[in-house]
């Protein structure tokens, strides 16, 4: 009896935690890019603005795989079939850290005056056999890439400045081929839902990085329609 109650109480706790909005599952995001030649200027600016300036910037080297799960409803057309994207990311430079499985919701651009993109976001640490697990579930690998760059922290905000590399055929980290001649700059903050005041905080910080980089709300759907 008692053993039966335990999982129920855990779920109750989780739902009550969700209801009381203490789980940080909303990501406030701004994105931009900076060309390689001026990346160093931005790097110095970020070093000056962000926390732990004395220890120097933290580097990262991540490998991300994106899996898609087709929800095959019997009567639906392929357009109506919603693909469900799951991202698995691992740190190549820190193999002892757990892998991260991440679900990202549809980005909400909101109104014109809303300062940031808002998307729901769930992060779960997992073991390396998550790839196998997802394949068994029927997920198919859509794309993968390697990110290499610097990570900064400013209070609750996380600033990454990274370069995207194409995964070589050999799948070894040495055969890296840069996708573009620029750095991707992301300014993100994870918060429980309903804390919209932090968006202004992000906006203020983004203003401080002007004109080195313009961090904006990027509309992916429009980007896709352009391409």
């Amino acid at each position, binding site marked *: 009896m008692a053993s039966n109650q335990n999982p129920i109480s855990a779920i109750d706790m989780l739902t009550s935690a969700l209801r009381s909005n203490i789980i*940080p599952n909303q990501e406030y995001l701004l994105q931009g890019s900076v060309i390689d030649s001026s990346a160093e200027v931005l790097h110095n600016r970020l070093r000056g603005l962000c*926390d*732990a300036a004395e*220890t120097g910037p*933290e580097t*990262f080297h*991540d*490998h*991300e795989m994106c899996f898609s799960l087709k929800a095959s409803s019997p009567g639906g057309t392929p357009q109506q079939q919603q693909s469900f994207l799951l*991202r698995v*990311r*691992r*740190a190549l*430079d*820190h193999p002892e*850290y*757990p*892998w*991260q499985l*991440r679900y990202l919701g549809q980005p909400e651009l909101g109104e014109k005056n809303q300062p940031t993109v808002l998307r729901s976001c769930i*992060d*779960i*640490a*997992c*073991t390396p056999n998550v790839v196998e697990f997802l394949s068994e579930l029927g997920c198919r690998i859509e794309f993968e890439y390697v*990110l290499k*760059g610097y*990570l900064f*922290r400013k209070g*609750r905000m*996380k600033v*990454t400045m*990274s370069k995207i590399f194409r995964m070589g055929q050999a799948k070894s980290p040495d055969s890296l081929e840069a996708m573009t001649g620029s750095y991707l700059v992301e300014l993100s903050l*994870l918060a429980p839902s309903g804390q919209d005041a932090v968006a202004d905080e992000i906006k203020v910080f983004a203003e401080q990085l002007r004109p080195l980089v313009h961090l904006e709300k990027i509309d992916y759907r429009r980007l896709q329609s352009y391409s």
Partner: protein
Amino acid sequence: MEDFFTNNSVCVSVEAPAENLVQEIAYDGQEVFQLPLTLSENLTKQAHKIDWIIREDDENDDDTLSATVTTEKDVEEESKKADFQTSSWPWDSVRNKLRSALTEVCVLADVLVIAKDKRYMVLDPVQQEQPDQRQLAQLFSKKRGLTAAANILLHGAERLKISQSDTARAKSNQDFHLELLRLRQSWTLKKIGNSILGDLSYKSAGSRFYQTGIFEVTKSEDPNLGLSTETTSENQPKQSMIKVTIPTELGGTSYIQVTIQKDQDILCTTNLNLLHTSLIHSDHSLDANPWTSKLEAAQNVLFCKELFSQLAREAVQLQAAIPHMVVGNQITASLFPGIQLSIHFQSSYSAGVNKRQLVSNSTSLVAKVDHNYILEHSLHQLLRQVHLNNVGQPVPHPSSAPLGPTKRRRLAGPHAYDRDELLLMTKNESILEQIIRQGQHVVLRLRTMFVIDSIAREIRDPLIISHWNVLNSPTLSCVKIIIMTHGYDTLQRTALVVHVGEKTLKCVCRDGRVLHMSYEPQELRDLILCQISQHQINAVQSLARFLGWHVASSSAHLGLGPVEPLGNASSCILSSPSGNRILSVRCGPQAAQPQVYLSTYPRHDTVKNKVLKDMRWEQLNTRYEEVRLEKIEGRNFLSRMELLMASLTCRPPMSWE
């Protein structure tokens, strides 16, 4: 015709025209005549024509003068006669006047001649008396002139002063900005409105103390003060252009005093004062910037306050067997039974200065030697570690992972940690717990030192040498104890290592045994005494082998003889190379000196025995007799034993009595 004229010559008289001179002719041709001159007017007109100066030039010769005068007079008289024929002697008055004038002129000429010679007469300027009015006016004018000059000078001086003060102000402004720049290099400053505010709190270093450390920077009011002090002495610090205003609650000085007390006896005391150390280290920078000391003192006060409030909060929260007490500015925690750790927060505002003097005096008498800097350093370190943990959040890897959780918490999910491991992870040792552990270690180390030193002082024969490791952790230190005999140190060394922990001692003996002991000092004392007794027996055995004797038997835990109050006595039996001398050595932990017994053969009483005729019965040992070691020469037990064994070896068996 000429003749006619000559013949009929007409007499032409030359006379003055009867009619008057025409003065002017009007436009209608009418002439306006001048009025005829009167007699006196005519005379003066004529007299004007006389050139008197010519006559005076020729006055050297009186005769000529008079002659000319007469001739002149004649001419005049003639002309006057012609003009005024009616008067009988009309020139009489004129002549008299001229004569008198002449006389005067002559006299004047004579006087001039005489005066020119300067033989008979000297002309002196006559001092004319100045009128008073004139002097006063001169005075006034002089005064006016002087005031005008003074005004000009004053005006010029004023302008110079203004320009000088302008440059001084500009210079002081420049100094102010330079100093502000220096201040900015070491302190956080920001400008809010017209005021410059700084922050001396440890917030940027990770402190979460509620009290703010905001100070205001203003320009110093009196820049001249700096100049004057600069001229008076170079030793005095230069007056700063910056005036730093700190909040009153951060004023003064404060410090935290850590004391370990045993029934009112202070075992160990530590004064935590950041300012003190900073004063020692940064003397030069202090001279350069007077505000440094003020700000550092305020920062020290803030640090001490934060530390004490943190400790007090933890003392209340901690569930200890003997509850910690927080009374006013004092926290008391018990380390061992009867030994307490008390932490005082004292500041110069809370009337603790006198008390501090008293305490420091008493500690200087009681525990000056025991003063160690470990507790002081630990208190520094512990709070700063807390700060660092607040700031230094672990960086997520991979980069998409959320900020905040530590690496262990990240691993908890994938590795499926159970509840105990998770609880262990949340356990965080507070500053107070750590300082109590360190205090316990300090007490235990002091006790261990005391025990070892007192044994070394009491027991001289085997030497006891202790080596304390210089490098140790705040809660663990290590001492190596070596027991050896002077002069025989290569023969036998007994070494043991004692690890001094927080509440227990761990002793590793030479034979590999590991003994755990409590904090009671008697246990260590007993152990060392046992080790000493065993050392003596072992050393005697080594010596015996060295001298060719045989070790018949040896026992570290002898079951015979009187019962020792602690531990067991150890003993060995040695026989001489020829076998006719047997020495028995017994050493108990409580005995001051080992006891030595001697047995020899052949027995003297066997000769009389008629029953036992076999020679082998003569080989039986006699009764053991105690050797009075103190009568034998030698500086220690081993040297005496060496002497004893040597003498027993070399003498023939029958001659020994």
